[in-house]
């Protein structure tokens, strides 16, 4: 017999996910005040746009490195044109 999911039980999971993701979004907002959100844990840039802080990747085809020191507002370095 095909599995059936109880709608109330499913809504509880959605509520749990919303709680988890809301916390993630709050952390993202806090982190964005001191660290570029496009910079990953390896200090590589994941942005699809140019930025003056980008440097050549260490390996061919890899992500560009971020040389931003996060002491200044990183958004000034983003290329917007």
């Amino acid at each position, binding site marked *: 017999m*095909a*599995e*059936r*999911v*109880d*709608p109330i*039980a*499913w*809504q509880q*999971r*959605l509520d*749990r*996910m*919303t709680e*988890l*993701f*809301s*916390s*993630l*979004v*709050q*952390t*993202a*907002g806090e*982190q*964005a005040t001191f*660290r570029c*959100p*496009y*910079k*990953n*844990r390896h200090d590589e840039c*994941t*942005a*699809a*746009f140019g930025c003056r802080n980008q440097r050549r990747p260490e390996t061919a085809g890899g992500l560009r490195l971020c040389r931003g020191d996060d002491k200044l507002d990183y958004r000034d370095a*983003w290329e*917007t*044109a």
Partner: protein
Amino acid sequence: MADITDVANAFLRSEIEEFVERPNESARLVDLYAGASPEMQAIAAALVEGEDDDVDRLTTEALAAGVPALEVMDNGLIAGMSLVGIKFRESFIFVPEVLACARAMKAGMAHIEPILSASGIEPLATVIMGTVKGDLHDIGKNLCIMMLRGAGFDVVDLGVDVSPDDFIDAVEEHDAGVLGMSALLTTTMPNMGKTIEAFIDADLRERVRIMVGGAPVTQEFADDMGADGYGKDAVACVELAKALAGAARGA
């Protein structure tokens, strides 16, 4: 109370020991993972690593083996995301890694959706999301999409640099009731208004509710260009989408 050695998955054990510093959180995760089957632990581990292909495969296998969808959610996908949240809060990982984990979660949930549908549980609405023409910034949009999917919306992500025609095509193709547009640049913000005008010109404006957001966007700007709503962040985006989806259904 379980012990860390009760967690069968070596990766999860090492993650807890290396990254979870608060004793109460460590104990909660150990209990959670120790009470989960090795298959569910493997899903959680793949999600924490952001490996969407592995989550896809492991979720498929688990459901085919008869593991209930809610168990996959609780002990696999949500269990993994709980650890992701702690690592992010403590700055061991950052937004790009979190978004990779969210993509992995979506890969797993894709296999649960048919079971929900067969149970009579449908998405709240279909939402088309994209960053407007000329704009390549996508973090805010991607966080909104993560929140919307977690809240039960079906989201079609058009990516960045999306033209008005592409927004229109997507709304028609997916019969979407809600459209979300993002812009980070003051120079690309006007393209939101141009997209809304394109919907008017195509005689489709009444068919879709349009919400906008992005760092330079304000409620006043949203009102001026004729949007139906403005969300200041990803959390507000979800509440707005719920209200607009309800309005669309009532129209």
